[in-house]
Protein backbone atom coordinates (compact mmCIF):
# COMPACT_ATOMS: atom_id res chain seq x y z
CA UNK A 1 0.00 0.00 0.00
CA UNK A 2 1.35 3.43 -0.86
CA UNK A 3 2.40 5.71 1.96
CA UNK A 4 0.00 8.39 0.86
CA UNK A 5 -2.89 6.02 1.48
CA UNK A 6 -1.51 4.57 4.68
CA UNK A 7 -1.81 8.00 6.19
CA UNK A 8 -5.21 8.36 4.64
CA UNK A 9 -6.85 5.28 6.01
CA UNK A 10 -8.04 4.39 9.48
CA UNK A 11 -7.43 1.03 11.10
CA UNK A 12 -10.36 -0.64 9.40
CA UNK A 13 -9.05 0.55 6.04
CA UNK A 14 -11.58 3.32 5.46
CA UNK A 15 -10.32 6.41 3.71
CA UNK A 16 -10.05 9.63 5.69
CA UNK A 17 -9.18 11.99 2.86
CA UNK A 18 -11.91 14.10 1.33
CA UNK A 19 -12.97 13.67 -2.28
CA UNK A 20 -11.32 16.97 -3.21
CA UNK A 21 -8.04 15.93 -1.59
CA UNK A 22 -8.00 12.59 -3.38
CA UNK A 23 -8.92 14.00 -6.76
CA UNK A 24 -7.41 17.49 -7.16
CA UNK A 25 -9.46 19.73 -9.41
CA UNK A 26 -6.52 20.34 -11.73
CA UNK A 27 -6.08 16.62 -12.44
CA UNK A 28 -9.81 16.06 -12.91
CA UNK A 29 -9.86 18.86 -15.45
CA UNK A 30 -6.82 17.43 -17.24
CA UNK A 31 -8.52 14.04 -17.51
CA UNK A 32 -11.82 15.50 -18.74
CA UNK A 33 -10.19 17.84 -21.25
CA UNK A 34 -8.25 14.98 -22.80
CA UNK A 35 -11.42 12.92 -23.10
CA UNK A 36 -13.18 15.77 -24.86
CA UNK A 37 -10.32 16.30 -27.29
CA UNK A 38 -9.95 12.66 -28.25
CA UNK A 39 -13.50 11.37 -28.04
CA UNK A 40 -15.72 14.36 -28.69
CA UNK A 41 -13.51 16.09 -31.25
CA UNK A 42 -10.12 17.63 -31.95
CA UNK A 43 -11.46 21.15 -31.55
CA UNK A 44 -13.82 20.47 -28.67
CA UNK A 45 -12.66 22.32 -25.59
CA UNK A 46 -14.10 22.06 -22.12
CA UNK A 47 -13.70 25.58 -20.79
CA UNK A 48 -13.31 26.13 -17.03
CA UNK A 49 -16.22 28.56 -16.58
CA UNK A 50 -19.52 28.39 -14.76
CA UNK A 51 -22.52 28.02 -17.04
CA UNK A 52 -26.25 28.44 -16.57
CA UNK A 53 -28.07 25.58 -14.90
CA UNK A 54 -29.58 23.26 -17.53
CA UNK A 55 -33.35 23.40 -18.21
CA UNK A 56 -33.65 19.60 -18.50
CA UNK A 57 -30.81 18.17 -16.45
CA UNK A 58 -29.64 14.73 -17.46
CA UNK A 59 -26.92 12.72 -15.72
CA UNK A 60 -24.64 9.74 -16.17
CA UNK A 61 -22.71 8.29 -13.24
CA UNK A 62 -20.31 5.58 -12.16
CA UNK A 63 -19.23 4.40 -8.74
CA UNK A 64 -15.63 3.90 -7.64
CA UNK A 65 -15.17 1.16 -5.09
CA UNK A 66 -11.98 0.70 -3.12
CA UNK A 67 -10.43 2.06 0.09
CA UNK A 68 -12.24 5.23 -0.99
CA UNK A 69 -15.83 4.83 -2.18
CA UNK A 70 -17.21 7.54 -4.34
CA UNK A 71 -19.34 8.51 -7.23
CA UNK A 72 -18.67 10.57 -10.33
CA UNK A 73 -21.73 12.23 -11.85
CA UNK A 74 -21.75 14.18 -15.11
CA UNK A 75 -24.74 16.46 -15.53
CA UNK A 76 -25.76 18.62 -18.46
CA UNK A 77 -28.89 19.47 -20.40
CA UNK A 78 -30.49 16.52 -22.15
CA UNK A 79 -29.91 18.20 -25.51
CA UNK A 80 -26.21 18.55 -24.63
CA UNK A 81 -26.06 14.84 -23.79
CA UNK A 82 -27.48 14.20 -27.26
CA UNK A 83 -24.89 16.44 -28.91
CA UNK A 84 -22.11 14.77 -26.95
CA UNK A 85 -23.31 11.35 -28.09
CA UNK A 86 -23.52 12.53 -31.67
CA UNK A 87 -19.91 13.78 -31.49
CA UNK A 88 -18.80 10.56 -29.82
CA UNK A 89 -20.25 8.50 -32.64
CA UNK A 90 -18.75 10.82 -35.26
CA UNK A 91 -19.68 10.59 -38.91
CA UNK A 92 -21.39 7.29 -38.26
CA UNK A 93 -24.47 9.10 -36.99
CA UNK A 94 -27.15 10.21 -39.36
CA UNK A 95 -30.56 11.49 -38.39
CA UNK A 96 -32.18 11.25 -34.99
CA UNK A 97 -30.63 9.43 -32.09
CA UNK A 98 -32.86 7.14 -30.07
CA UNK A 99 -33.14 7.64 -26.31
CA UNK A 100 -31.29 4.33 -26.02
CA UNK A 101 -28.39 5.63 -28.10
CA UNK A 102 -28.07 8.72 -25.92
CA UNK A 103 -28.16 6.74 -22.68
CA UNK A 104 -25.58 4.34 -24.03
CA UNK A 105 -23.26 7.03 -25.41
CA UNK A 106 -23.55 9.38 -22.43
CA UNK A 107 -23.09 6.44 -20.06
CA UNK A 108 -19.91 5.46 -21.87
CA UNK A 109 -18.63 9.01 -21.48
CA UNK A 110 -19.17 8.74 -17.70
CA UNK A 111 -17.43 5.37 -17.76
CA UNK A 112 -14.36 6.84 -19.45
CA UNK A 113 -14.25 9.87 -17.13
CA UNK A 114 -14.66 7.56 -14.12
CA UNK A 115 -11.89 5.27 -15.36
CA UNK A 116 -9.55 8.21 -15.83
CA UNK A 117 -10.25 9.47 -12.31
CA UNK A 118 -9.94 6.02 -10.76
CA UNK A 119 -6.39 5.84 -12.13
CA UNK A 120 -5.51 8.99 -10.15
CA UNK A 121 -6.31 7.29 -6.86
CA UNK A 122 -3.40 6.02 -4.79
CA UNK A 123 -4.81 2.53 -4.35
CA UNK A 124 -6.39 -0.03 -6.70
CA UNK A 125 -10.16 0.35 -6.98
CA UNK A 126 -13.00 -0.98 -9.07
CA UNK A 127 -15.37 0.87 -11.34
CA UNK A 128 -19.10 0.08 -11.42
CA UNK A 129 -21.01 -0.05 -14.70
CA UNK A 130 -22.43 3.35 -15.71
CA UNK A 131 -26.02 4.40 -15.05
CA UNK A 132 -27.94 7.17 -16.75
CA UNK A 133 -31.05 9.20 -15.89
CA UNK A 134 -32.61 12.47 -14.86
CA UNK A 135 -32.30 11.68 -11.15
CA UNK A 136 -28.86 10.63 -10.01
CA UNK A 137 -28.45 9.50 -6.39
CA UNK A 138 -28.21 12.36 -3.89
CA UNK A 139 -24.66 13.58 -3.23
CA UNK A 140 -23.22 12.98 0.20
CA UNK A 141 -21.78 15.78 2.31
CA UNK A 142 -18.23 15.34 1.11
CA UNK A 143 -18.56 16.48 -2.46
CA UNK A 144 -17.23 19.00 -4.93
CA UNK A 145 -18.37 20.29 -8.29
CA UNK A 146 -16.22 21.01 -11.31
CA UNK A 147 -18.04 23.31 -13.65
CA UNK A 148 -17.24 23.67 -17.31
CA UNK A 149 -18.71 24.99 -20.51
CA UNK A 150 -18.81 23.10 -23.76
CA UNK A 151 -20.19 24.85 -26.85
CA UNK A 152 -21.63 27.50 -24.55
CA UNK A 153 -23.55 25.00 -22.41
CA UNK A 154 -22.78 23.92 -18.88
CA UNK A 155 -21.33 20.49 -18.12
CA UNK A 156 -20.83 19.68 -14.43
CA UNK A 157 -18.76 16.91 -12.96
CA UNK A 158 -19.68 16.17 -9.36
CA UNK A 159 -17.41 13.97 -7.30
CA UNK A 160 -18.64 12.78 -3.94
CA UNK A 161 -17.74 10.30 -1.25
CA UNK A 162 -20.38 7.64 -0.76
CA UNK A 163 -20.67 6.93 2.96
CA UNK A 164 -23.13 4.04 2.73
CA UNK A 165 -23.57 1.03 0.55
CA UNK A 166 -24.78 1.91 -2.91
Amino acid sequence: MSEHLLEATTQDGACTLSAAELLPEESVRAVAEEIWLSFIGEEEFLIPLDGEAPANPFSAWVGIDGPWRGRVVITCDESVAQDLTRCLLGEETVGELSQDDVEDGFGELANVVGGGLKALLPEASRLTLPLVGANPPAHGEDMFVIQSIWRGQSVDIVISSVPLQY
Partner: protein
Amino acid sequence: MHALVIDDSRAMRRIVGGILSDLGYEVEQAGDGQEALNVLEAGRVPDLACVDWNMPVMDGLSFVSAVRANPAWRDMTLMMVTTESEHGQIVRALAAGAHEYLIKPFTPDALRDKLSLLGLVPVEVP
Protein backbone atom coordinates in the same frame (compact mmCIF):
# COMPACT_ATOMS: atom_id res chain seq x y z
CA MET B 1 -9.43 -10.11 -41.93
CA HIS B 2 -12.03 -10.71 -39.28
CA ALA B 3 -12.38 -8.75 -36.02
CA LEU B 4 -14.59 -9.21 -32.99
CA VAL B 5 -15.39 -6.06 -31.00
CA ILE B 6 -16.45 -6.83 -27.44
CA ASP B 7 -17.90 -3.96 -25.40
CA ASP B 8 -21.10 -3.45 -23.45
CA SER B 9 -21.47 0.04 -24.91
CA ARG B 10 -23.06 0.07 -28.36
CA ALA B 11 -21.50 3.47 -29.02
CA MET B 12 -18.08 2.03 -28.34
CA ARG B 13 -18.70 -1.00 -30.56
CA ARG B 14 -19.74 1.36 -33.33
CA ILE B 15 -16.65 3.53 -32.94
CA VAL B 16 -14.13 0.68 -32.83
CA GLY B 17 -16.04 -1.36 -35.42
CA GLY B 18 -16.22 1.68 -37.72
CA ILE B 19 -12.47 2.27 -37.65
CA LEU B 20 -11.78 -1.42 -38.28
CA SER B 21 -14.19 -1.74 -41.17
CA ASP B 22 -12.67 1.37 -42.77
CA LEU B 23 -9.41 -0.57 -42.69
CA GLY B 24 -11.03 -3.45 -44.50
CA TYR B 25 -11.92 -5.67 -41.56
CA GLU B 26 -15.08 -7.72 -41.41
CA VAL B 27 -16.44 -6.85 -38.00
CA GLU B 28 -18.60 -8.83 -35.63
CA GLN B 29 -19.79 -7.51 -32.25
CA ALA B 30 -20.47 -8.94 -28.81
CA GLY B 31 -21.86 -7.17 -25.73
CA ASP B 32 -19.91 -9.10 -23.10
CA GLY B 33 -17.29 -11.83 -22.68
CA GLN B 34 -19.78 -14.68 -22.65
CA GLU B 35 -21.42 -13.55 -25.88
CA ALA B 36 -17.97 -13.36 -27.39
CA LEU B 37 -17.12 -16.90 -26.27
CA ASN B 38 -20.34 -18.06 -27.90
CA VAL B 39 -19.16 -16.55 -31.17
CA LEU B 40 -15.84 -18.40 -30.90
CA GLU B 41 -17.51 -21.66 -29.96
CA ALA B 42 -19.76 -21.34 -32.97
CA GLY B 43 -16.55 -21.56 -34.99
CA ARG B 44 -16.24 -17.89 -35.95
CA VAL B 45 -12.72 -17.28 -34.65
CA PRO B 46 -11.47 -13.79 -35.58
CA ASP B 47 -7.91 -12.68 -36.31
CA LEU B 48 -8.30 -9.87 -33.79
CA ALA B 49 -10.49 -9.28 -30.75
CA CYS B 50 -10.81 -5.79 -29.21
CA VAL B 51 -11.89 -6.37 -25.63
CA ASP B 52 -13.37 -3.96 -23.10
CA TRP B 53 -12.61 -4.73 -19.45
CA ASN B 54 -15.70 -3.82 -17.38
CA MET B 55 -18.73 -5.59 -18.80
CA PRO B 56 -21.72 -7.40 -17.30
CA VAL B 57 -21.92 -11.23 -17.28
CA MET B 58 -18.25 -11.88 -18.15
CA ASP B 59 -15.59 -9.20 -18.01
CA GLY B 60 -12.77 -8.76 -20.49
CA LEU B 61 -10.03 -10.16 -18.30
CA SER B 62 -11.93 -13.43 -17.80
CA PHE B 63 -12.56 -13.56 -21.55
CA VAL B 64 -8.83 -13.17 -22.28
CA SER B 65 -7.99 -15.93 -19.79
CA ALA B 66 -10.63 -18.21 -21.32
CA VAL B 67 -9.27 -17.65 -24.82
CA ARG B 68 -5.71 -18.32 -23.69
CA ALA B 69 -6.81 -21.56 -22.00
CA ASN B 70 -8.00 -23.00 -25.31
CA PRO B 71 -5.18 -24.01 -27.70
CA ALA B 72 -7.58 -23.92 -30.65
CA TRP B 73 -7.75 -20.14 -30.30
CA ARG B 74 -4.00 -19.57 -30.02
CA ASP B 75 -3.70 -17.57 -33.24
CA MET B 76 -6.14 -14.91 -32.15
CA THR B 77 -4.64 -11.52 -31.36
CA LEU B 78 -6.14 -9.93 -28.25
CA MET B 79 -6.16 -6.21 -27.61
CA MET B 80 -7.75 -4.68 -24.53
CA VAL B 81 -9.60 -1.43 -25.30
CA THR B 82 -10.61 -0.05 -21.93
CA THR B 83 -10.76 2.87 -19.58
CA GLU B 84 -8.80 0.86 -16.97
CA SER B 85 -5.51 2.72 -17.05
CA GLU B 86 -3.52 1.90 -13.93
CA HIS B 87 -0.05 0.49 -14.43
CA GLY B 88 -1.02 -2.61 -12.42
CA GLN B 89 -4.11 -3.30 -14.53
CA ILE B 90 -2.13 -3.20 -17.77
CA VAL B 91 0.38 -5.63 -16.26
CA ARG B 92 -2.49 -7.96 -15.26
CA ALA B 93 -4.00 -7.93 -18.73
CA LEU B 94 -0.67 -8.63 -20.41
CA ALA B 95 0.04 -11.42 -17.93
CA ALA B 96 -3.36 -12.96 -18.70
CA GLY B 97 -2.42 -13.06 -22.37
CA ALA B 98 -3.48 -9.80 -23.99
CA HIS B 99 -1.04 -8.72 -26.74
CA GLU B 100 -1.79 -5.03 -26.74
CA TYR B 101 -3.60 -2.47 -24.66
CA LEU B 102 -5.34 0.67 -25.82
CA ILE B 103 -6.59 3.10 -23.20
CA LYS B 104 -9.92 4.92 -23.64
CA PRO B 105 -10.17 7.67 -24.74
CA PHE B 106 -8.23 7.17 -27.94
CA THR B 107 -8.19 8.68 -31.41
CA PRO B 108 -8.59 6.60 -34.60
CA ASP B 109 -4.87 7.18 -35.25
CA ALA B 110 -3.99 5.56 -31.93
CA LEU B 111 -5.99 2.44 -32.80
CA ARG B 112 -4.29 2.29 -36.20
CA ASP B 113 -0.86 2.69 -34.55
CA LYS B 114 -1.62 -0.28 -32.29
CA LEU B 115 -2.73 -2.40 -35.24
CA SER B 116 0.47 -1.68 -37.09
CA LEU B 117 2.48 -2.63 -33.99
CA LEU B 118 0.63 -5.94 -34.10
CA GLY B 119 1.30 -6.31 -37.82
CA LEU B 120 -2.45 -6.29 -38.43
CA VAL B 121 -2.70 -3.35 -40.76
CA PRO B 122 -1.84 -3.49 -44.43
CA VAL B 123 1.52 -1.71 -44.74
CA GLU B 124 1.35 1.22 -47.11
CA VAL B 125 3.89 1.03 -49.89
CA PRO B 126 5.62 4.41 -50.26
